[in-house]
């Protein structure tokens, strides 16, 4: 059966991953004191769906784990048990185990069977709290002595009867795994459970066969064996029940009917009167619409049913599927990137045409020009929609944080609520993958160093529960992601003292924004106690470096006793940039628009020279260092006089600077080409682009220019 099914594995894997994520999200959002029924149902349904699929596709380990989950969840949603936070923990652990199992079947990684056993035990302990009896949830083998009415509810009577029944199990497993000691231990353990008969059992045999007559449930037998025998090679069959049974009921959802059809004398049948009185995996309701008439022949005969757990661990296979969901298609990222590249080329061609057309007589070529205008609009729309293919909502990253916060908060004994704002904000897929680690680090940092212990918070007049806010929004061509907490805030004195101790160039008059940036220095930590969470000073510098590598910036705002907010500003995409083209001498440069505040033509009296520190310009009462672009790149400008040129006011990393250029040329959307991969890294340049006339224009590394000018002037 499995070979037919392999082609659906991939869909099942994806579906299960989604369901697990959904389950985890619901679990994390669940209020233990007043659980939302909708959530409980959703969690149950997720476990249930995974179980259904796992059973169908023969992933027995997952079926078992989800069955345990489902059993407990069912009791919770029916109100037979109260939800407790330990249960949520156990559910989350179970989710992790299933994730591992899923990865194992997928072929990346291996599940740890010991973890599964531990979680199973935990879950069944919770389940047993309500049932009291030794009834294990996984397999219910019940015998109802009277033949009618067989429509049985799980009443107390039934349960108590079932526990006194004795079942004959046939157990089979390979010998090769066991040494002498383990074998004798196993035998004595099984003997304790009931009457054990060795059918085939000896060192010379390749497989052992045992018959065990016991009043234990199959689950118990299973547990004893699973400790020493690899569950994938273990076969436990129910041979018979010892009580004279007019009919038998097996909850067949647990039991995959053995693949070997010949074992089943009568694999199916129909009931003459009532539903349910069967071991069969399906049946018809006589008298119901369209039921087949030949129900008599198929009447079930007691005693000859044989149901085995199909424990064949089907080999994992990665099979791509042709059955795409109607709402989405799966396309390789290479194809998308190729398309983006081509559209980039198209944009350049369009710009070239536009440039050439600007030189012709608009009256004579009116139609051509209006066509070109149309082309420009269409190209831009096309480019936007192609770029949007790569865009994913940031919730792809955010969704992992509730778990991080929950686990860490309980480890640190802090009470923390995580708020998420703007999780629908879209970001380039490439950035999504890269931003996850830095954000995780920032959140861990907020948790560990930002939010105080509950008693400290209460003493400070704050609520015991701290709040960490994750917020994402678009601003201009950037996406801003903020990690904010209402914790203790950064301590200026401590940071400055630490910086002096480390010999960093600091002074007491530094503005806060610069003091805060010191925490991104390598090896910088003011944490009094180094915990295993954070505080070793490793990481914040890496965070900043990673974000800079993505073309992003980090800013910190903090107030002592009130909290800290770290903002990460990233370009929306790595491929295209909105820029202002400026001319210096005969060269053209692109300045990313996000950094530009304004452009102005200065008057001679606004310019002041500071001896040894270059020139400054007064703009709206503020003195800004002047960066003359021709000096940076050693070019000959049209005029050396500042008041003949144009100042572009830039802001980056909290500093402002005025960049002197000869002319402003125009605003473009440019396709970024890496200078590094085509030439080499150049100081002050972050990339290059091809302009409409085919010339290469360099894209300025604005942030670096601004910061270096600032350092010089200070």
């Amino acid at each position, binding site marked *: 059966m499995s070979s037919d099914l392999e*082609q659906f594995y991939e869909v099942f894997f994806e579906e299960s991953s989604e369901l697990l994520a959904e389950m985890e999200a619901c679990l994390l959002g669940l209020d233990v004191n007043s659980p939302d029924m909708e959530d409980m149902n959703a969690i149950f*349904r997720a476990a249930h*769906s995974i179980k259904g699929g796992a059973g169908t596709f023969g992933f027995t380990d997952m079926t078992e784990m989800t069955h345990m989950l489902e059993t407990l969840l069912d009791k919770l949603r029916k109100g037979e048990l109260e939800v407790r936070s330990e249960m949520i923990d156990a559910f989350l652990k179970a989710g992790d185990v299933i994730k591992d199992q899923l990865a194992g079947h997928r072929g990346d990684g291996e599940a740890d069977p010991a973890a599964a056993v531990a979680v199973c035990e935990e879950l069944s302990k919770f389940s047993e709290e309500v049932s009291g009896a030794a009834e294990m949830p996984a397999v219910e083998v019940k015998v109802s002595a009277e033949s009618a009415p067989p429509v049985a509810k799980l009443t107390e009577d039934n349960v108590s009867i079932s526990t006194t029944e004795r079942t004959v199990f046939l157990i089979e497993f390979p010998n090769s795994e066991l040494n002498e000691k383990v074998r004798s231990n196993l035998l004595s353990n099984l003997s304790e459970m009931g009457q054990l008969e060795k059918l085939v059992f000896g060192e010379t045999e390749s497989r052992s066969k045992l018959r065990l007559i016991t009043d234990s449930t199959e689950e118990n037998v299973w547990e004893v064996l699973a400790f020493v025998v690899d569950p994938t090679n273990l076969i436990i069959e129910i041979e018979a029940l010892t009580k004279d049974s007019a009919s038998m009921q097996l909850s067949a959802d647990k039991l995959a009917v053995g693949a070997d059809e010949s074992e089943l004398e009568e*694999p199916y049948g129909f009931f003459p009167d009532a539903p349910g009185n069967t071991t069969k995996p399906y049946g018809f309701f006589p008298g119901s619409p369209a039921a087949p008439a030949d129900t008599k022949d198929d009447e079930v005969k007691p005693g000859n049913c044989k149901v085995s757990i199909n424990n064949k661990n089907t080999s994992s296979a990665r099979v791509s599927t042709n*059955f795409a969901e109607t709402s989405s298609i799966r396309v390789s990222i290479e194809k998308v990137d190729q398309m983006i590249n081509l559209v980039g080329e198209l944009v350049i061609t369009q710009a070239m045409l536009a440039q050439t057309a600007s030189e012709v007589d608009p009256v004579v070529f009116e139609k051509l020009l209006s066509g070109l205008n149309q082309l420009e609009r269409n190209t831009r729309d096309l480019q936007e929609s192609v770029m949007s293919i790569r865009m994913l909502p940031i919730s792809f990253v955010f969704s992992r944080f509730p778990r991080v916060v929950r686990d860490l908060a309980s480890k640190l004994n802090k009470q923390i609520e995580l708020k998420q704002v703007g999780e629908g904000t879209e970001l380039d897929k490439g950035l999504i993958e890269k931003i996850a680690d830095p954000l995780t680090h920032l959140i861990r940092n907020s948790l560990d160093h930002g939010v105080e212990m509950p008693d400290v918070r209460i003493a400070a007049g704050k609520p015991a529960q701290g709040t960490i806010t994750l917020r994402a929004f678009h601003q201009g061509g950037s996406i801003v992601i903020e990690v904010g907490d209402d914790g203790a805030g950064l301590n200026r004195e401590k940071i400055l003292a630490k910086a002096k101790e480390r010999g960093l160039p600091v002074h007491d008059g530094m503005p806060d924004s610069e003091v805060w940036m010191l925490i991104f220095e390598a090896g910088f930590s003011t944490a009094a106690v180094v915990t295993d969470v954070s505080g070793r000073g490793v990481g914040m510098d890496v965070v900043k470096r990673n974000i800079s590598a993505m073309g992003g910036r980090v800013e910190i705002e903090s107030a002592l006793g009130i909290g800290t907010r770290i903002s990460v500003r990233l370009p929306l995409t790595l491929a295209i940039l909105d820029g202002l083209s400026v001319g210096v001498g005969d060269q053209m440069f692109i300045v990313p628009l996000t950094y530009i505040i304004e452009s102005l033509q200065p008057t001679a009296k606004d310019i002041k020279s500071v001896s040894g520190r270059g020139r400054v310009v007064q703009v709206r009462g503020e003195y800004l260092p002047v960066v003359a672009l021709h000096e940076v790149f050693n070019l000959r400008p049209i005029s050396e006089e500042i008041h003949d040129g144009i100042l572009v006011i830039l802001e980056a990393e909290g500093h402002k600077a005025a960049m002197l250029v000869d002319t402003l040329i125009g605003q473009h959307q440019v396709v970024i080409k890496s200078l590094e991969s085509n030439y080499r890294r150049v100081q002050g340049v972050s990339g290059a682009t091809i302009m409409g006339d085919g010339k290469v224009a360099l894209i300025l590394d604005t942030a670096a220019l601004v910061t270096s000018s600032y350092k010089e002037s200070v």
Partner: protein
Amino acid sequence: MAKKILAVDDSASIRQMLTFTLKGAGYDVIEAVDGQDALDKANSHKVNLVLTDINMPRMDGLQLLEMLRRLSHYKSVPILMLTTESGDDMKAKGKEAGATGWLVKPFDPKRLLEVIGKVIG
């Protein structure tokens, strides 16, 4: 003309498996993702058989059964419930709601076709 089957399950992998198996056996298949979806599709298509999961969001299989049986043209259409629910109370509920029969998950494609063959041949 090929017989038409409405396959209702909220799990995409089960749906695909059903569709693949049934189409392979020459049936026409309409998929629905939950009870509500199935009801809409049942209204706009004439089907020979309905296969439905029980536990689904929005509208579960039992509600779907009841709703379908209220429609005049679904009074006698066979409806099989696919279920992993243990215990007979689910079967009893299914019968009450008007199911023709049940098939317990997990099942293999062969078994599925065998059961369907018995009902609509």
